[in-house]
């Protein structure tokens, strides 16, 4: 069996919420060993973000368990001297430390870059605060939607007739920052291989997000261009849009890139009278064309409509909602979902790694860890903490198997 690229890489993971945990989920998928470190006093908030009916809600969070699989859980109160000391010993056994705290937190905990590199000189530290470690905006608190707004992307998204910018429907800044952080980790590991030196990466999630709209900066700097809201249309071709289908909130997206696709579309929707329209005419009469396409699509099931247009070579897809996507025949044929048994939850379809290394074939191996599940394995096995000390550490709340005073939110 071929080995995964990051087998043998150990990561001390201080990240919380979504951006960092998304990064370390991908690192785990690629074979890295992830030690997720939380404190009984300051746990990953995602565990308790929403109310869950379970005696241990922090172990039964769908949101947490989807993005933290294949990791090990160690609890350490980093604000406690013994917790900090154990963390630094653990960091010395790791290749990478990754954190997505607000910019000032790591230093306040006394485990900033200088301290960490003293613990292990060739360590890679990836910090991924919303706005970076330097600059006048470093103190801003940045969750994904704020990162997206502050990076320029939100300003580019809109229907066009109401002047309103719209946020992406997910906290888009988080996984985008997370994916860039994976690149940063590997780049720093490659650098370490060449030079023997560690690296501190200062990743600002806002800056990685701005990369996703790079051409808008070219447009602004060359022509002082302001955002244009195009709805679902495209400046290069017409028609393009999203059209209602039979059923509740069912939609079909389609594009017509050239005259041949246009002739194929009008034949499919019974609009032969429009067959000779040029690109310019199609642009000018886009609203009228939209109404003709909608009149056709409303009578059709979105899956059937997609398949019939694709059979004619027209780019089309149903807008898959968050339920139907788990039953999409294509994703099912690609075995894109997998079920992992979990001690506190019914299994649910979880995505395979999107990074399909066809030979190494990454597969999720194990459910997300219970809170503090690997305390003994790591603290005693790796650090040589005496079994007898574990109870003392637990009594002092340096470690634990449940968050202290867990509420909701």
């Amino acid at each position, binding site marked *: 069996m071929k080995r995964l690229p990051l087998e043998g890489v150990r990561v001390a993971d201080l990240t919380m919420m979504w951006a960092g945990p998304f990064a370390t989920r991908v690192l785990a998928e690629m074979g890295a060993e992830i030690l997720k470190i939380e404190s009984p006093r300051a746990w990953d908030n995602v565990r308790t973000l929403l109310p869950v009916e379970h005696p241990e809600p922090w172990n039964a969070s769908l949101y947490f368990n989807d993005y933290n699989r294949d990791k090990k859980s160690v609890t350490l109160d980093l604000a406690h001297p013994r917790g900090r000391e154990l963390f630094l010993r653990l960091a010395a056994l790791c290749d990478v430390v990754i954190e997505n705290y607000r910019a000032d937190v790591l230093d306040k905990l006394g485990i900033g870059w200088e301290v960490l590199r003293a613990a292990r000189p060739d360590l890679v530290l990836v910090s991924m605060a919303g706005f970076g470690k330097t600059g006048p905006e470093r103190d801003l608190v940045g969750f994904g939607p704020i990162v997206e707004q502050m990076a320029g992307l939100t300003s580019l998204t809109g229907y066009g007739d109401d002047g309103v910018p719209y946020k992406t429907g997910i906290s888009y800044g988080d996984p985008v920052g997370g994916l*860039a952080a994976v690149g940063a980790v590997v780049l720093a590991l490659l650098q370490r291989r060449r030079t023997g030196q560690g690296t501190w990466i200062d990743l600002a999630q806002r800056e990685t997000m701005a990369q996703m709209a790079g051409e808008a*900066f070219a447009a602004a700097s060359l022509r002082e261009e302001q955002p244009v809201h195009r709805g679902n249309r495209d400046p290069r071709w017409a028609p393009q849009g999203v059209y209602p289908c039979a059923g509740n909130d069912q939609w079909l997206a389609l594009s017509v890139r050239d005259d041949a696709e246009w002739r194929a579309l009008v034949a499919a929707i019974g609009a032969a009278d429009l067959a000779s329209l040029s690109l310019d005419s199609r642009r000018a009469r886009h609203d009228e064309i939209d109404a003709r396409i909608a009149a056709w699509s409303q009578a059709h099931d979105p899956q059937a409509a997609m398949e019939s247009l694709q059979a004619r070579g027209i780019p089309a897809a149903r807008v898959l909602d968050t339920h139907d996507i788990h039953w999409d025949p294509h994703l099912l044929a690609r075995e894109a979902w997998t079920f992992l048994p979990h001690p506190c939850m019914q299994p649910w379809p979880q995505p395979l790694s999107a990074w*399909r*290394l066809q030979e190494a074939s990454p597969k999720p191996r194990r459910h997300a860890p219970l809170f503090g599940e690997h305390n003994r394995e790591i603290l005693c096995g790796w650090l040589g903490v005496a079994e007898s000390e574990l109870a003392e550490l637990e009594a002092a709340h340096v470690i634990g198997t449940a968050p202290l005073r867990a509420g909701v939110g």
Partner: protein
Amino acid sequence: VSQETRGELPLAGMRVLEIGGGVAAAFATRFLAGYGADVARSEERAGELTGDEEAALLPGKRRISVSDAELRALALAADALVEDGKPGSLAARGLDPRALRAEKPSLVITSLTPFGQHGPYAGYEATNLVAHAAGGIHSLTGLATRPPLANGANQAWKLLGLNGFGATLTAYYGAQLRGEGDWIDLSAQECAAGMLELYGPRSAMDGVPSPRLGNRTNAVWGIYPARDGYAGVCTLQRQVPALFALIGDPELEQPRFLDPMQRIRDDRELGEKVAAWFATRTRTELVELGAKHKVPLGAVMTSLDLLSNASLRERGFFDEVETPAGRARVPGRPFLGLPWRAGALSAPGADTDAVLRDWLGAGRAR
């Protein structure tokens, strides 16, 4: 933090062949070029990128125009091949990925497509909108009373390219360690389908699709009109008291607003209070208040706003690049800490001779 962007580039010596020329492949190799890889871009589909996209995605790359036989030789001289053609298009030109891998086991091949290399939709036609629709994010964006709304700047292709960057580099690391590359099948649909926040897993569990929530997930997580544009707030429960203290309305000290479970019931009323507070303040005021009081507040900024942003300037975020339309400023290094080069924008085919000579030897130059 070391703001060092000079010094020996971390990917110096890495050779990357980019075949295809769409946004996805161009994005995937953009950071590789910036961090020092020698990226040779073979443009198969002329004119696919706009001038602005070229300015943002092509600096530091060499642009070649070669025969299929030369392309194959270059692929075997490369460390990584990144392509965004249709499934089967490489094989049709004599560059079958499995054959290339057999001939050069350390080669990393990254294939970027809308739907992946196999499966019922593998041969489907797609644009950015179509690929985005299939990935799930589209269904969540915009208003419940209106059609799903695609976000700006071709995000299906960008997200595919961002995954391509990380995956290529990760497989290259494995190849450096063990001499074995891989063939990576990346699908735009899957890149999105696996990152649907809580909405994806929750719908998978309870069978109910998540609705579009527009700009208001709830009263303390959304975007509001400000005096001079739009601004946002995203507070967790632990930050709610600080937000309410800023708003300064004594009614907000009641448990029906402070308690997260009760707040859901009075969300609309709370939203009106938050909206009124935002409406009298500018975006700059809101961002500064957020930083000062540790409340997650932000503002909807345009790229024009950001070109003069003090943080981005101090951190040296933008690179300058000469383009046929003038000097552009575009996002530079994605993160700080490693040497980076800004790179110039080359012309189509301008580097063919040089790449053939450098990669294949003097005898192969034209």
